[in-house]
């Protein structure tokens, strides 16, 4: 798969190909940072209407429930296009918060 980088800011790097948008999230996902991350991802969804949105948490060092809002919101953004969400590279702490919220009902968590 050949991904093209379309957004590269401090909190998220977004790559895309024909059917997939991959958002590589970096740093701390809290209420303060979540807005710019979600704006960047929504911009990519609006442009590309992807079949699949991959949220890569490998670079995330902290996440509170603002990250849950971020995932649920992106699920609502991609749903009208029939897209699905895959969550990748979550650490133990982030998985705990995601499990608490029951996110596995909306997305595939790897």
């Amino acid at each position: 798969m050949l991904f093209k980088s379309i957004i590269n800011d401090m909190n998220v790097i977004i790559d895309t190909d024909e059917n997939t948008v991959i958002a590589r999230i970096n740093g701390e996902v809290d209420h303060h940072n979540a807005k710019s991350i979600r704006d960047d991802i929504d911009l990519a969804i609006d442009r590309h209407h992807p079949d699949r949105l991959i949220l890569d948490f490998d670079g995330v060092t902290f996440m509170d429930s603002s990250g849950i809002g971020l995932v649920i919101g992106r699920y609502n953004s991609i749903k009208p296009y029939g897209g699905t969400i895959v969550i990748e590279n979550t650490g133990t702490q982030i998985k705990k918060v995601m499990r608490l919220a029951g996110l596995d009902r909306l997305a595939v968590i790897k």
Partner: protein
Amino acid sequence: MKILNEIKISFPSNSCNEGLARSVISAFTAQLDPSVSEIGEIKTAVSEAVTNCIVHAYRGTHGKIEIVARHLEGNVLYIKIRDNGCGISDIKQAMEPLYTSAPEEERAGLGFAVMESFMDKVTVRSTENKGTTVIMKRKILSKQSDT
């Protein structure tokens, strides 16, 4: 319980201070020799409480957030987070998982659920138009839980 050490911090309800509050409490908690998992959970609980102050208590306004952290006898961490905001009219409803008064801001309604899940005890006191105080306690166990 005897207080072995204590800090008090106060800062304006700017969202950039969410990370500051987590860092300060994390540094204080280090004295209790927590595991990586414990420190992560405590930081998350503090982040939720401070975010509640910013998003809910001081919605559309600004105010002061005060945090008191204590190291209590028995290796117990005590954290009190107080605002002088709008208060909570129905604490029971506010603490229900998935309840939020700010869905437009993509709040998940899990703040108190996370606090209760990650801390041993969470107490909330609130008076409408005067403010809210959240008190959380957690006994710090050994680092063996990391293995």
